[in-house]
């Protein structure tokens, strides 16, 4: 079931939550809406679900206009950040809810409901918890039950609002891999909202990066990471170092080093972004190297993060693998040269 979002706008008072959004979700795709809080990603998801009505625009499910269809008839599965399980029902009854509330004519028999619920609980690998109450489950288990409940009504699309947001890091990682495998198994068109770029890049087929109610970029995880369309996308998808400079003859100068800025107009203000792990350290000066001095060294598990002071600029962060750090025998207070392997130059900001 494909989803088409056409010119959707939504305003809350003076706040423009969604500003003319156009987006297509292909059938069977797992799409991530990624952005900082307040960027409109949750509003967009709720508009798709029918929990929020847009001020303008249309939502089409498989070419059919559903903009004015009530959430009850829209056949969407919605998974909430805080699970929203029914506390007074057992796990079994929670999953069975969507089947039991059907009108008599279309309601399956008790035996069919039982069979279906157990099949779904097996799918989320929690069949053994059928008689428990939500209060007796862990967060990860609750979210899997919430997912089973949403799938019970055989939704045309599955919508997940920060599904792993309330879980701790380890469970979150486990669960998102599990969600990816589950999606490969059942292939229901899914949209999930997250503010965690790692989660979006790992799980989604395509990522939509949003900011201030607008879409900044749509693309596969490698597209958005490798060729960010805007400085916002670049800085949102990972750590960055930022330099301000001006372009001269196709070169931008940063603390004595020259960085290629072809296609940029002369004398334009340039902002240069470099990721910490895309900088090499050297003790030998070269034309493209920036001079600096190591001020801090922090060990972060598999990587080492060094802080380097550069004249006239903010301190630069450099990330090295453990081995590279050991090979170089870098020390605090040492003068070094920074060689950016890859730098993005944005002008006209």
């Amino acid at each position: 079931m494909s989803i088409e979002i056409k010119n959707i706008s939504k305003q809350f008072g003076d706040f423009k939550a969604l500003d003319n959004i156009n987006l297509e979700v292909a059938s069977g795709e797992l799409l991530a809406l990624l952005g900082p809080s307040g960027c409109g990603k949750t509003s967009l998801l709720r508009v798709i679900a029918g929990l929020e009505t847009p001020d303008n625009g249309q939502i089409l499910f498989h070419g059919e206009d559903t903009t004015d269809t009530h959430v009850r008839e829209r056949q969407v599965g919605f998974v909430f950040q805080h699970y929203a399980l029914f506390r007074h029902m057992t796990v079994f009854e929670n999953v069975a809810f969507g089947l039991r509330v059907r009108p008599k004519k279309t309601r399956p028999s008790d035996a069919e409901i039982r069979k279906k619920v157990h099949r779904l609980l097996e799918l989320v690998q929690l069949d053994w918890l059928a008689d428990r109450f939500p209060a007796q489950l862990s967060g990860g288990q609750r979210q899997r039950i919430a997912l089973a409940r949403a799938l019970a009504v055989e939704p045309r699309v599955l919508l997940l609002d920060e599904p792993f947001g309330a879980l701790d890091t380890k469970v979150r990682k486990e669960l998102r891999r599990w969600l990816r495998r589950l999606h490969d198994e059942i292939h229901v068109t899914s949209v999930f909202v997250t503010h965690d770029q790692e989660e979006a890049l790992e799980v989604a087929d395509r990522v939509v990066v949003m900011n201030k109610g607008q879409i900044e970029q749509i693309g596969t995880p490698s597209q958005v990471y490798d060729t960010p369309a805007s400085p916002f996308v670049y800085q949102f998808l990972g750590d960055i170092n930022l330099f301000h400079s001006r372009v001269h003859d196709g070169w931008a100068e940063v603390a004595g080093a020259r960085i290629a800025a072809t296609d940029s107009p002369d004398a334009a203000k340039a902002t240069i972004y470099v990721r910490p792990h895309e900088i090499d350290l050297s003790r030998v000066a070269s034309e493209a190297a920036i001079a600096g001095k190591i001020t801090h060294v922090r060990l972060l598990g598999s990587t080492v993060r060094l802080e380097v002071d550069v004249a006239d600029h903010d301190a630069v962060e450099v990330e090295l693998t453990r081995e590279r750090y050991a090979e170089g025998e870098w020390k605090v207070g040492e003068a070094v040269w920074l060689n950016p392997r890859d730098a993005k130059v944005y002008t006209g900001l």
Partner: protein
Amino acid sequence: MAFKKHSVLPGFNLALGYTLLYLSIIVLLPLSALVLKSTGLTAEAFWHAVSEPRVVASYKVTFGASLIAATINLITGLLISWVLVRYSFPGKRFIDALVDLPFALPTAVAGIALATIYAPNGSIGQWFEPLGIKVAFSPIGIVLALTFITLPFVVRTVQPVLQDLEPELEEAASSLGATRLQIFWKVILPTLLPALLTGFALAFARAIGEYGSVIFIAGNMPYVSEITPLMIISKLEQYDYLGATAIAVVMLVVSFTLLLLINGLQWWSAKRMGRR
């Protein structure tokens, strides 16, 4: 002590000790004095005092009217708290404050006011008179007075729970295809049930003990509209202290049993859902 759990807040012994002492002095001591006093009667005399036909009729009136009043407030209390939580309208705060008024008003004032309005020639009572319905000076009047007195209980117990009810629950139910009515019956009402039960129990308990407002509107006809507290007072007026005590003990036992039952029910449901 085995049941003492380690806690960052000190003072478990002090707090528990104070609680027990306080409850003993304020609640347990007077009540046990009451029970003790009733042992001055022989079993036969006790039974005679509490099973007099006129007294038995008063039990029926008191417990019956209290049950009806608490049930009425269970439903209207839910409605009022729903309106106060879910809707916003001008004068909402005023109405919210109005709910507590029955607590503040002297109960006798409430009784007299109600009796005046609902009397056969009163401003509302005159409309019921031609229909052959006598509101004041009949058991209906008792129910009315008790409903007035116990109005705040259900509202004030349900309101905070309703306020904390996550909108996501209703959204989830809606996305699963439930109608508004199904959402109310299957999702909202069961969640509110513990609070509703508490409010009901409080209202019921309060109604059983109510005296001031009822005597003005009840008419106090023997076998018809005499409440048990009135029987106790009239015994006292005849210097039959032991007889009054015996009736009081019966009320105490019945009320306590009912409250225990309701609390037990709540405890059981909370335990079943794994919250205890």
